[in-house]
């Protein structure tokens, strides 16, 4: 479950990014797609992730999204030559379940996975990292 605090912080950071090009008034919510609705560049995403890492004191290394989508599935079943298999695509779509299904093309290259992320997906990524950092107390 996403903590509202994480989502709110991510939304504020995205608003900061948009303000660099005078787009302060643009709507940003959990289901906003970074590349689709906000025309993010890969450098905008990288900058956002750096700031998220700093703020929450977590690490989101390259390939995190790929790893989360793959889960326990063997790499050879998940993708071939960096292109997701049908099973790999299904796992990605399950992970990014707030992204409209029709936005996923038939052929998905591993380098393009962040393009399908919503703001909410980034917040969930933060939550997953925070949960991994803090062991559950019973």
């Amino acid at each position, binding site marked *: 479950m996403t903590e509202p605090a994480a989502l709110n912080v991510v939304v504020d950071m995205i608003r900061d990014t948009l303000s660099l090009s005078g787009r302060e008034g643009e709507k940003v919510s959990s289901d906003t797609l970074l590349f689709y609705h906000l025309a993010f*560049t890969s*450098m905008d995403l990288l*900058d956002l992730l750096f700031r998220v890492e700093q703020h929450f004191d977590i690490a989101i290394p390259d390939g995190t999204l790929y790893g989360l989508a793959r889960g326990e599935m063997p790499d050879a079943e998940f993708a071939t030559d960096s292109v997701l298999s049908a099973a790999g695509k299904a796992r990605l779509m399950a992970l990014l379940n707030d992204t409209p299904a029709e*936005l996923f093309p038939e052929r998905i290259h591993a380098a393009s996975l962040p393009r399908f992320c919503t703001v909410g997906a980034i917040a969930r990524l933060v939550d997953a990292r925070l949960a991994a950092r803090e062991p559950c107390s019973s």
Partner: protein
Amino acid sequence: MFELIRTLRIDAHAGGAVGEAAVPADHPMFADHFPGVPLLPGSFLLELAAQAAGPLCEEVTALRFGLERGAVLAMVRRAVFLRPCFLPATVRLTAHVRHADSARMIAAVVAAVGDAIVLRAELVMAMIDVPPEWSRVLEGRHERLARWNSAT
């Protein structure tokens, strides 16, 4: 937003593109790089190279294979940073397609400030399908390329 390219002219038949990016000294994204000595980070220089190579690869894919695909930087195959790029700077970008197939392209990019080359790189661009539902993104891309092409 990180959009610093001002001009980009693509010759898909020749497999080449030439563009210019205006990089200010006070861009918030690299405010701490470094205080008092603004220097363009290498990663940003590579992003500029990819922003020039990407549209070139898309145009070449359309011309040679009749496919409208989007270019995504898949790998930096080689990057040699020859000089620091002090800011503000106008960075001239020259890109050429070295290898082309419908799924993957390799582009060589040279970035220069004045007469000094600051970067030589080879970028592998994955050419990805663009579903019709992404039409608003394609429209934005066409608008941006038209703006970059018409700027003087």
